[in-house]
């Protein structure tokens, strides 16, 4: 579309403004995390990185990191497997209940997460399961498996059915077709779904709130500290969690490029 130079510049400016709006609170958290004072107030008079040292040394923070990592890791693996098969059923194959299945997949995404967490708490109680980090994995998956399915489905839609048929015509059985054709073709989608799954689980709070029992994830601990009064560790641990996501995201975004250059070096 043709737009005037001025309109184009105005739109770019608006886009930058929206990005600034989205990141402004993180800037505040960043500043707060390097403030020396126990009770935060702007403008910050003395900067120090002491709280980072305290956070890294703290056993509580280490346990929280480890638990969040464990939950997110398992959620990622399961979401990738369920999402891979789900996406093929969602986008690739024509079968009888496909439309119904597509709607079932979308429903949890539209559902209020806090209510879902409470419903799961009642459900675990009814079937006699004691909530722990394992039940939190289930809770995260209710929301994240459908998202992983959708992310992979985008890839599966552009999948040429002739490729699978060709493999079958040349004598490959279902498993061989899957392994040699379908999985490699959908792999980029599966990897991005895995990245999404990990990061969404890592940052999720409403689903963890009621389903972790005596265990606690990082966002839960942060929330508890936020509502019970200020602790200088909150912005610090918050920034650490953001930094962890950013590093993972950067790795995920550059991974295809890194792999390509590795392959070039070898050949």
């Amino acid at each position, binding site marked *: *579309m043709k737009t005037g130079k001025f309109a184009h510049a105005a*739109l770019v400016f*608006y886009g930058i403004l*929206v*990005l600034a*709006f*989205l990141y*402004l609170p*993180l800037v*505040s*958290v960043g*500043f707060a995390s390097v403030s020396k004072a126990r009770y*935060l*107030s*702007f*403008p910050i008079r003395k900067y120090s990185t002491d709280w980072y040292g305290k956070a890294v040394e703290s056993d509580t923070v280490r346990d929280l990191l480890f638990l969040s990592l464990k939950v997110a890791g398992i959620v990622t693996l399961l979401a990738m*497997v369920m999402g891979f*098969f*789900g996406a*093929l*059923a969602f*986008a690739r*194959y*024509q*079968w*009888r*209940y496909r439309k119904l*299945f*597509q*709607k*079932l*997949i*979308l*429903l949890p995404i*539209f*559902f*209020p997460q806090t*209510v*879902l967490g*409470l*419903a*799961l708490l*009642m*459900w675990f109680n*009814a079937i006699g399961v004691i909530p722990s980090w394992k039940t939190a994995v289930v*809770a995260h998956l*209710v929301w994240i*498996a459908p998202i992983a399915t959708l992310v992979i489905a985008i890839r599966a839609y552009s999948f040429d059915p002739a490729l699978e048929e060709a493999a079958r015509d040349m004598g490959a059985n279902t498993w061989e077709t899957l392994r040699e054709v379908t999985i490699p073709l959908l792999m980029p989608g599966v990897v991005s779904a895995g990245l999404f799954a990990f990061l*969404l689980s890592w*940052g999720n*709070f*409403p689903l963890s709130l009621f389903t972790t029992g005596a265990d606690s994830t990082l*966002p839960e601990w*942060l929330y508890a500290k936020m509502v019970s009064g200020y602790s200088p560790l*909150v912005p610090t641990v*918050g920034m650490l969690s*953001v930094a962890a*996501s950013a590093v993972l*995201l950067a790795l995920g*975004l550059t991974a295809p490029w890194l792999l390509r250059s590795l392959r070039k070096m070898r050949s």
Partner: protein
Amino acid sequence: MRGRERRLGLLYSLPVSAFLALSFLAPILLVAAFSVMPPKVFSLANMPDFSAYGEFLTQGYWRSVAWSLGMALAATLILFVLCWPLAFAMAKVFRGFTLVLTIGVVMTLFVSENIRLFGWVLTLMKGGLIEGYIRHWTGVGYDGLLYNVPIIIFGLVYVYLPFMLFPLAQGISMVPDDARQAAYDLGATRWQILREIELPLASPGIVVGSLLCFVLSAGAIAESKLLGGQAVIVIADEVETAFTYGQNWPLGAALAMVLIAIVGGIAIWGIAKADLDAMIGRRR
């Protein structure tokens, strides 16, 4: 070949649909069953008496529902107006910058919602980033901007912006340039093109974006707790209180069912109307 596709489709759908049946549909049914139990029981082995729904009407819980729905509606309308120009630019005007924006916006989704809202508390509170510097430079401060209804709506707008922006951009990219060009050549004004061409043709994206924002805002809790203080109690908050402090599961279940019925009804209606194959698989 057809028969094979049909079998594989069913087979491959099983892991995720069995999982959702057991850990999504079953819990909702359980909540529905609990909602008709007499007050403060913890098992289903009681005579149903629907008293929790009576309490919903007589104890003023409907006010929380009205607040939640009203604020969700306000946030959705604001988001639509706010996101439309940017979504339009992402779909039709920008080239490389669309990718920058997409990555920039998606990245915020991966930061825990409550860290970002906490950041707004630090930004807006008395002695926070904005007030602190204004006082530092001008000597005059104000009492902080937190703990009222507009700031909760602000929080909802902030948190759910990506859920409006991306569906809108997707919807707008479905509007063919030819249709807009033709309307322009026939003498339509910018406003007429928007009303007669763009809005109707982008409607799938508008419907999905608005639904997502409305539904998620209606069930939101962190915005009102962290930014709004006790300015208003939203319905999700009442549900939580009934389950935890109140130890009244049937009441909590009935409140949850009201929210589920409203939100689920709207979501099912919207999902039933949307053609998913066309929306997601457009780039075939």
